[in-house]
């Protein structure tokens, strides 16, 4: 699905990603954990195509295409989805209009006709049930005046509507209470299939009780310093990042 090779990225003069290597296959769920400032969100942003970051080295192959050559909208059209850590409020643009535009631009990219209004509305109804999103919210402006939990559920709702091949969830669990967390996880698990893959970026083991990863990677100082199975997350939860930090610091000396 996606192969990341020796990816380096900077913001201004500061190098944040210092050689990421990662291979994700269809049907897999990967968790990326790591302390604050390790580069988790930068990785998500670079994959999605945020222009604030400059890729200085490496390559990313997504379904046979060089992802880094594509504009952000084309990455999305190719099937990449980023669930934002901080979803953006867009006053005056209704959720419905936003999704209709997105869905139809993706369809146009693949040479498909616009989705008939009836089918679109049926899809909206089905998917908003999945994330228990109030029907009133879908008619409101994108994320405007939504609570933190509603914003995150709206991200998962959008994901469900657009049905991506690879979804990157950037700290979708932050700021969620236990009920919202369960709803988000239920949504992800319902969408999971042999054809798609997920990258779950999180600080905590908690979310991984609900979304069970196949692989866990620890990102530290811009590199993946350890990879393992789901038990690695439990180990981290028990021991914290101190051991890894120490190992790394002794390496640097």
């Amino acid at each position, binding site marked *: 699905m996606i192969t990341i090779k020796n990816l380096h990225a900077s913001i201004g003069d500061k190098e944040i990603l210092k050689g990421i290597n990662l291979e994700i296959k269809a049907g897999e769920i990967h968790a990326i954990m790591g302390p604050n400032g390790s580069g988790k969100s930068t990785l998500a942003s670079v994959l*999605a*195509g*945020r*222009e604030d970051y400059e890729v200085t080295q490496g390559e990313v192959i997504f379904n046979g295409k060089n992802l880094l050559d594509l*504009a*952000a*909208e084309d*990455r*999305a*059209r190719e099937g990449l*989805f*980023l669930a*934002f850590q901080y*979803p*953006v409020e*867009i*006053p*005056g*643009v209704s959720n419905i*209009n*936003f*999704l209709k*535009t*997105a*869905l139809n*631009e*993706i369809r146009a*990219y693949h040479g498909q006709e616009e989705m008939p209004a009836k089918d679109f509305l049926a899809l909206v109804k089905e998917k908003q049930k999945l994330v228990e999103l109030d029907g009133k919210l879908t008619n409101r*402006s*994108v994320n405007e005046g939504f609570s933190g939990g509603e914003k995150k559920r709206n991200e998962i709702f*959008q994901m469900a509507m*657009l049905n991506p091949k690879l979804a990157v969830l950037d700290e979708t669990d932050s700021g969620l209470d236990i009920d919202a967390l369960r709803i988000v996880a239920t949504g992800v698990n319902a969408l999971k299939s042999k054809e798609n893959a997920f990258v779950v970026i999180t600080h905590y083991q908690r979310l991984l009780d609900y979304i069970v990863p196949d692989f866990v990677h620890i990102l530290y100082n811009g590199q993946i310093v350890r990879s393992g199975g789901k038990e690695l997350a439990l180990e981290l939860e028990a021991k914290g990042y101190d051991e890894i930090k120490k190992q790394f610091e002794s390496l640097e000396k």
Partner: protein
Amino acid sequence: MIAEKSNTAQLIIDKISSSAEKVNFIDNDQLSKALLYLENKGIPNNKHEDYKYCNIDGIFKKEFRNIEQKLNSVTDVAQYKLKDALTLVVVNGNYSESLSDKLILKGLHLTAFSNLDKEEKKLIGCLANVESDAFIALNTAFSGAGFHLKIADNEQLQMPIHILYVSSANSEALVNPRNVIELGKNAEATIIEEQICIGTGKVFTNFLSEKFVGENAKLTSYTFQNEGANGFSVNTNQVTINRYGKYDNTTVTLSGALVRNNHNVVLAAQNCQAHLNGLFTTRNNQLVDNHTLMDHQMPNCESNELYKGIITDKSTGVFNGKIYVRKDAQKTNAYQSSKNILLSDDATINTKPQLEIYADDVKCSHGTSTGKIDEVAVFYLNARGIGRESAKKLLLNAFAQEVINKIEVDELKEKILNLFENEL
């Protein structure tokens, strides 16, 4: 500041005097005053405080060197008509009975200025002081026609009135449309004034309207300006509101080489309200200048202004909003807001609130913001597969909604929305 004198005014007077109809509804005394004012003060340039960003003298010198007044007759305006409105058509300042709908609305009276009786003629010029502005003077001196639209006391018009002002010439021309709109006591009306410029020649339209909102009357007014590259206009609205009266205007400017709007509202009695909203889009070298005046003369009145601009290419937008709260106008509420988006590095917006407050128990505020398109929002939309152009359209549409949603005539709202989206 006194404007530097130029001979532009004299040249205009020489060019159009011969073809202008004789003005037979204004006192000779006023006519001489108008001409004298025009000759003395000239056409304002950017040294004139009120025209600092709108050098009309310069525009005349550059664009109207050869005014020939070859005005066109117009035979078909069907494409501009609204289905559920009564259309009145004014071609180059002259009311066209043949193009206009039949005046079937109860309570509506339309009279050519020249057919008004002596007493009624006194209304003309009552709000437009010939010695206050060069364009009022110019219109007064050369507007040979015009009409008085009266909505009788206690009458609520069942349908909006759509006044279509068509300017059309095959060479450079200057036209001076004029009207007086009067709402009697307790009257209610919705009036749409649309300005277009068709034909192959550049036309300078110097429009003047005096609007009287009677006691407890309600005038909902829309100004829609879409004059295209050949259209140059100065549009003066002089409005006075009597007690418990209400005046709402929404002005949408989608095109025009030069559009200068002088919207002057006098809240002349207690408990009246005025709302002015504006949306304009400019591109190329266009200039759109909205000048408003809210003159609060009496207590317990409310005014609110919201102007939004989208400025592209090398074009310029201006908003100058003056709020005047006189000594007697206690308990005034007056608000003003100007928001603008600049879409290019060469685009310019000049925005200036002017508050002059002489009463001590008032609530007045103003706010202005100017920015570029929100790149964070653009990225969010891109990340969902929406391309840059569509993202921009969605965001600009959202920006404009606040003003477009003030339009309560659905058909007009839809028409403007479609044209607006095409402009983006």
